[in-house]
């Protein structure tokens, strides 16, 4: 809470490792979050090798078994190993979370920056369109997407991505607007640089901080959205291993007789989103110059 130490200013001579170390030292919570995210990512990438069982294979000899040495987290009503399903579910969560966040964030970035840069009619139209999507209930969009295109992973991603776009473009536009009025953008124009160059070289780098913070939080939001959609029967579909799906149907039915079916996937979602958010918060503190001064 004390005043600013002098070494707080960014130091170009510092190596990546040093900055990382510094981040860890200054942001223990963020480091913990990062650790969770890394564990989740490693689990997802290496699911085939570390999962003890086939996540979709039914085993009618071992239905709703409590955690044991054979099945560390127990089995579900089809006798599928929960541990293996959670491990493979990390991959689904990563795919859904990252793809939605990246597509949603990137489209939002493009729309937001160009909307701010060109202004006028383009801005007006983009803003009205994003108003419509923002106001439109997510559930209707998701229901419609699933009913029209079917419920596969890619359609779930589509349903989750669409509402993220305007939210990102709003924020990006707001910060881009302040940059647009800066003298150096006018200078660049005066020099006769093309729109693309100005946007890419001057505007985009300057909105990167809020953008990265937002995209990080999108990953967590997308994982939660997938869980909610699955709960309503609109998400990823059986027998694909996905955390949200594991909480739907059976989990609730067996919540009191075989609680492990409901508890472990719920904990997995919580830890993942918690990790992403803790990391995102720390990232914000590190990137946002206004908040840096502590």
């Amino acid at each position: 809470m004390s005043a600013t130490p002098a070494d707080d200013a960014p130091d170009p001579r510092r190596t990546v490792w040093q900055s990382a170390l510094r981040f860890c030292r200054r942001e223990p919570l963020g480091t913990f979050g990062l650790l969770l995210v890394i564990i989740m990512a490693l689990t997802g990438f290496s699911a085939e090798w570390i999962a003890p069982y086939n996540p979709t294979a039914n085993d009618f000899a071992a239905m709703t078994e409590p955690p044991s040495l054979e099945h560390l987290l127990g089995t579900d009503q089809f006798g599928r190993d929960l541990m293996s399903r959670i491990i493979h579910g990390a991959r689904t969560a990563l795919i859904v979370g990252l793809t939605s966040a990246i597509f949603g964030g990137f489209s939002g970035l493009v729309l937001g920056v160009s909307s701010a840069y060109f202004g006028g009619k383009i801005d007006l139209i983009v803003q009205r369109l994003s108003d419509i999507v923002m106001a439109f209930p997510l559930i209707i969009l998701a229901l419609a997407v699933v009913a029209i295109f079917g419920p596969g992973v890619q359609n779930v991603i589509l349903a989750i991505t669409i509402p993220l776009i305007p939210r990102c473009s709003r924020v990006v536009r707001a910060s881009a607007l302040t940059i647009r009025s800066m003298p150096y953008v006018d200078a660049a124009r005066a020099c006769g640089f093309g729109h693309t160059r100005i946007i890419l070289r001057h505007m985009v780098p300057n909105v990167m901080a809020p953008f990265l913070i937002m995209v990080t939080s999108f990953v967590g939001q997308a994982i939660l959205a997938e869980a909610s959609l699955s709960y309503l029967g609109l998400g990823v579909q059986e027998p694909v291993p996905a955390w949200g799906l594991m909480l739907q149907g059976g989990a609730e039915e067996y919540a009191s007789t075989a609680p492990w079916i409901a508890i472990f996937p719920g904990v997995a979602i919580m830890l993942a989103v918690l990790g992403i958010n803790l990391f995102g918060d720390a990232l914000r503190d590190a990137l946002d110059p206004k908040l840096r001064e502590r």
Partner: protein
Amino acid sequence: MRAWLLTTGLCAAMALGAVWPADAQAPKRGGTLNYMIAADGGPSLDGHKETTYAVLHATAPFYSNLIRVNPENPSSTTDFICDLCTEMPVPTDGGLTFAFKIRGGVQFHDGTPLDAHDVAVSWRRIIFPPEGVSSAREAAYPMVDKIEDPDDRTVIFRLKFPTLSFMPALADPWSFIYSRKVLEKDQHFYERNIMGSGPFKLTSYEIGQAIHGERNPAYYQSGQPYLDGFNGIFAPKQQTRVDAIRADRAALEFRGMSPSARDQLVKELGDQVSVQESDWNCGNVFTPNHKKKPFDDVRVRKALFMAVDQWHGAEALRKIAIVRTVGGLVFPGSPFAATRDELIHFPGYGTDIENARAEARRLLKEAGAEGLTVEMLNRNVDQPYIIVGTWLVDEFRKIGVTVRQNIVPTGPWLEKMRAGDFDLAMEAYCQMVVNPIADSGRYLPHEIYKENFAYHDDPKQVEIYNRMVRETDPAKARVLMRAYENQVINVGAHQLPTLWFYRIVPMRAYVKGWKISNSHYLNQNLANIWLDQ
């Protein structure tokens, strides 16, 4: 024909395996029953128009019917008794004319008398709906030529041809008798309002939430109803319903719960809960689309069937889903149903599963369809659609076929099947009264039976069916049924019937008098239920 009727009745009565508690006590009067309706509330209240049991479970207590399934023996498929009529008619004209005498002294809840004209007008509305009125069961009465009401006490049904299927169709629980005066003013009145002559009078209806009824003191069945009233609460989620029975927020729901719900309630409530169970006249069907490659090849379809281990699947699924019995085209327990020995020769019914799967792989290889990856259309209903579908997907994996489930809401599910826009489909259907020959008509080609979505063509199958329909000797008809079944499952491998449903109704032990039947549509007017408190 009479022999047929007798055999069917007898066998059905003994075969259904319904578990009824012995109710030796005399019914007590009084009390209010809280029960749950296992669905979202909200469709119109018009029984002539709707098909979901959500409407029937909410409205049946308010209405009377012409005839009904005997509420003391609801599992029987032939035990029909009078509700508004005075005695079951003897058909005349060689089975073409049925004249019903209507009870005197029956009143609608608004105090107006109910007579034969009300009955006739209601039935005409169902069978010959006037312009602007949609009747859901119009197609169930192709045999009815006209309905006459010569005087206040007589209703005559005149048929186009004699048929045994008329009486079961007439016992349809949806055929509420409405007031003709009300209908004359507004044909859509009953969509939004309730006004019948049944054992209970409406006290209030909270849209989508609950329906409340109180005893109709003028009810014509002596002594009934026993309850002072009831609260029917809409509760679409099974877990809510289980919790509610556990905490005694409600005494039961009538549709049927999963085995795990039953086990949980029995474990937690002990002798405070009683359970009634019965085979359920609802079947699951696995349908490959014959119009889509490679399912136009009988070898591929057979291979898929062979991958399924029905006997072991049944053992496992009966613990987690509302299914239980391996069967063919006919409701298990009916004298027309195939025995185990008759079934085991069909693909998907064999007892040596390793052998069958090896054969399946060989067939796939022969047909050039190895390593197939396809989609299976399914409905987004947990019990039993998704569970049975998930089981099948894993069975297919064992012969190297990758199946992705395309689980969609009811509307798109129906539309995609009707449009032939699918590779494989998971279907399930429920019927009310067991009628093996009529019911197995759903396996006929799409050209003949519009709701068959295998889109196959099989003149031999149709020929066998037509002979079966005209056969009056039950023994010979049974032989034809085996040939028909063989044609559907084995020779043509058109569709695979998978496990039949099993109905489990756990309830608070103080609920007495209600008896389970093989259909959740039957026996729902609550008049004979009483509370032992």
